[in-house]
């Protein structure tokens, strides 16, 4: 394992980067990864990008009410997903993590079901789109309230430590979350309790329209870890291999009982904050165009080309295969139908109390009339 030989430097002044813009491997160690895994990263990044494009179509055609685009975050999200032990470790994601949950193995049908809010959603259509969750894969259900999942991630990690399960809790969030009290409360407690947790900021430098300069006066996000007594890694999140290796080190450090870390993955948000947002009101087209030149997929494509692992025909076949899978899953999800309306009264409590029975009866009668 490479991470046994390599220790990344916390609190670096430049973002940790292993592959440069031209796709050159620039790290002082060999990556040592098998070709299949390197190609798998590309496949998952492409799948995340194509999923994003599909979600944009769903919003434009009125089939869903909301999306939070994740294009620009693919390298960070795929790096995180592959550093986790899937189905063993827990992920506490936020609403811009559709590419991450896809790479982690959440079925596309469930992702589309959640997006459509219909019966294909394992959460029964309770939340707005971009709020996935999967008990089967230990993916905690996303909550809209910013940073509110951070103390629960700490609690789960403390439980993992107390019960000696060998698991790690990985918790993602945007840069805006770092301004919330819950962020500080959760991260501080995790550090004090030496909880096996990794806190990951996917920093795209915008909280809706608010630039990072209004979010923090710190030099970067990673440096905040210093105050809590844990390492903070400042990472180029457009570099999938940097994201993967740093995350792997932080996760294995947590698993070994050495406590939590903070990882900042600097990314771009190519879309608006959400389908309800118009980002032309607050950022220039020039800025966006310049960011798009730094597409993480393109950089990784160049790297793979140099490794002899990428050619246009392979990529086209991959694109076709993923597109077909996306379309098939979407069609399956579209056919799932609406959730049973009376399910509205389920899962408030383990068993329905009298007042919910009364309210359920009222709706049942209305539906029958």
């Amino acid at each position: 394992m490479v991470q046994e030989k390599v220790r990344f430097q916390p609190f670096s002044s430049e973002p940790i980067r292993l592959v440069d813009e031209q796709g050159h491997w620039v790290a002082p160690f060999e990556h040592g990864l098998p070709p299949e895994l390197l190609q798998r990263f590309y496949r998952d990044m492409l799948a995340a990008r194509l999923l994003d494009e599909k979600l944009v179509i769903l919003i434009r055609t009125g089939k869903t009410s909301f999306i939070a685009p994740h294009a620009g975050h693919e390298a960070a999200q795929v790096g995180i997903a592959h550093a986790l032990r899937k189905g063993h470790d827990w992920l506490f994601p936020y609403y811009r993590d559709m590419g991450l949950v896809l790479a982690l193995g959440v079925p596309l049908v469930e992702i589309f079901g959640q997006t459509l809010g219909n019966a294909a959603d394992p959460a029964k259509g309770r939340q707005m789109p971009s709020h996935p969750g999967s008990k089967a894969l230990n993916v905690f259900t996303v909550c809209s309230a910013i940073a509110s999942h951070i103390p629960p991630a700490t609690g789960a990690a403390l439980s993992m430590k107390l019960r000696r399960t060998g698991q790690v809790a990985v918790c993602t969030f945007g840069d805006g979350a770092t301004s919330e009290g819950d962020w500080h409360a959760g991260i501080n407690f995790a550090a004090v309790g030496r909880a096996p947790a990794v806190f990951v900021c996917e920093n795209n430098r915008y909280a809706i329209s608010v630039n990072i300069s209004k979010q923090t006066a710190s030099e970067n996000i990673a440096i905040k870890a210093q105050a809590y007594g844990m390492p903070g890694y400042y990472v180029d999140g457009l570099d999938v291999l940097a994201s993967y290796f740093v995350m792997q080190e932080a996760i294995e450090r947590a698993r070994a009982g050495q406590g939590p870390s903070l990882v900042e993955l600097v990314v771009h948000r190519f879309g608006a904050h959400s389908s309800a947002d118009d980002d032309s009101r607050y950022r220039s087209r020039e800025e966006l165009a310049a960011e798009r030149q730094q597409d993480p997929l393109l950089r990784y494509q160049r790297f793979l080309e140099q490794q002899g692992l990428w050619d246009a025909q392979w990529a086209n076949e991959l694109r076709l295969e993923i597109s077909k899978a996306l379309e098939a899953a979407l069609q399956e999800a579209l056919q799932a139908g609406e959730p049973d309306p009376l399910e509205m009264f389920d899962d408030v409590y383990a068993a329905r109390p009298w007042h919910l029975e009364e309210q359920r009866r009222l709706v049942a009668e209305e539906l029958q009339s």
Partner: protein
Amino acid sequence: MPTMTLIQAINTALDEEMKRDERVMLLGEDVGKRGGVFLATEGLQQKYGPDRVMDTPLSEAAIIGAAVGLAAHGMRPVAEIQFADYVFPGIDQLFSQAAKLRYRSGGQFSAPMVVRMPTGGGVKGGHHHSQSPEAHFAHTAGLKVIVVSTPYDAKGLLKAAIRNDDPVVFMEPKRLYRAVKEEVPADDFLLPIGKAAVRREGRDITLVSYGGPMVETLKAAEEMVAAGLDPEVIDLRTVMPWDKETVLASVAKTGRLLMISEAPRTASIASEVTATVSEELFDQLLAPPLRVTGFDTPYPLAQDKLYMPTVTRILAAAKRLLDY
């Protein structure tokens, strides 16, 4: 059968549940070495160790939020909030996470946890040590809310809350911690959440209360009995979900409801109970249901006793009902 104060009953319940189930753990500010500022957790860290009786950073958001994650991952956490008034920095965790986790995940995840907190006035605690915020919790779908008034109930209901699969807010009137004593069975017993207790049977008027003001309510009932009246007295014990069946059966019998609570009046548990009785028993009522409550002001230190329902106000309201 041992005689216990309310705080001893709580300590006993925690001890028994921790002994019974190794998933049960306590966390909060000062709960460990200190044993809690009111000594509810006294001696438990020595017995079960610092992992299961965990002193936490001074952060209600961290305490309640971590309890959510601990519970979702399989533990049975009992979080202590030092005073109910201090729950507000942790409200996002209680409302957005604990209360909603089961629902928003479609039943995939849940947070079986208890949040204990001393509540109410009467100890010269001033504004931020005297409030009764139960209506906030009761208004939040997904939470169960218990407010105890006796040592027996405290033991039986706290044990039931710990074994319950939903997040439960467990409120302990701090002025009763050492003011009431009674025999509490030493054996393992549970009381049903959502079931009221009829403290006195009667035919003339129904007095419904819970928590701290049960003291004044029972005193007022005694005075009414001395005056030749026959009041029925109900202790709700659980305010969400509250025991509508017991209250309606009583008011159907007496025709008169007086609801007593020390929380502010507007949008309160008292409002809910009186409104429900009006809706369901309108044609059987002999008088409009009345409320004696705390006031819609912040809690005033200097008027500590006057803010809470007094026996005088309870009797005056009862007279209005009986004379109607």
